[in-house]
């Protein structure tokens, strides 16, 4: 399964990436699992680890950690929002 992943705001700066296309192993089928998968890259990527204050969206809708990831999804990770 291949997905596009976007990073915003402070998370984008911490990671040094705004987006990437990823091929995921079958074991990575939820947002929570994807965060763990990315955090295991180590270093700055630990910012995505469990317990860190990161929000997620699938195809531009806010979702929780249990949400299922599907092939060709646009997934985004970002800090809590501060608009208005």
């Amino acid at each position: 399964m291949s997905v596009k992943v976007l990073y915003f705001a402070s998370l984008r700066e911490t990671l040094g990436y705004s987006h990437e296309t990823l091929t995921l192993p079958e074991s990575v089928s939820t947002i929570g699992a994807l965060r763990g998968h990315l955090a295991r890259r180590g270093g700055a990527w630990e910012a995505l680890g469990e317990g860190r204050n990161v929000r997620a969206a699938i195809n531009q809708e806010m979702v929780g950690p249990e949400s299922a990831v599907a092939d060709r999804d646009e997934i985004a990770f970002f800090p809590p929002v501060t608009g208005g």
Partner: protein
Amino acid sequence: MSVSVQEADFDVGAETAALSAGRLDVGAVVTFVGLVRADKLSGAGSEVSAMTLEHYPGMTEKSLEAIIAEAGGRWQLQGVRVIHRFGRLLPGERIVFVGVASAHRGDAFAACEFIMDYLKTRAPFWKKEDTPEGGRWVDAREADDSAAARWMT
């Protein structure tokens, strides 16, 4: 019902007038305008000199439309206009406009506050303040979460 996410400023008078233009069923128009404050920086004598707003193009518009749709399910609304700016803004500049038209003031007041509370916690915008030490991302406030939570009854 319309949403704009733009770098340019907006005309509060024109936007407010447009909410009831050509209609005789609107009895109340409530508007909110959010501005950049020159907050004092902690531990320094200086103030925020500017801020830059980043957003998630596409999701921003969708989330604002979803918030307006939810407001429309809760109150009788004749018109809603939301404008949110992004890019670099200086203290005193307008950031956000929410205007709501309704037959009666109760629905217009409530819907305007609801839309702002939900926008604060659900629309993907992030503020970065310019400080003498460089850029600093603004932390989300718990008060904004509790303001949004009071509508979840």
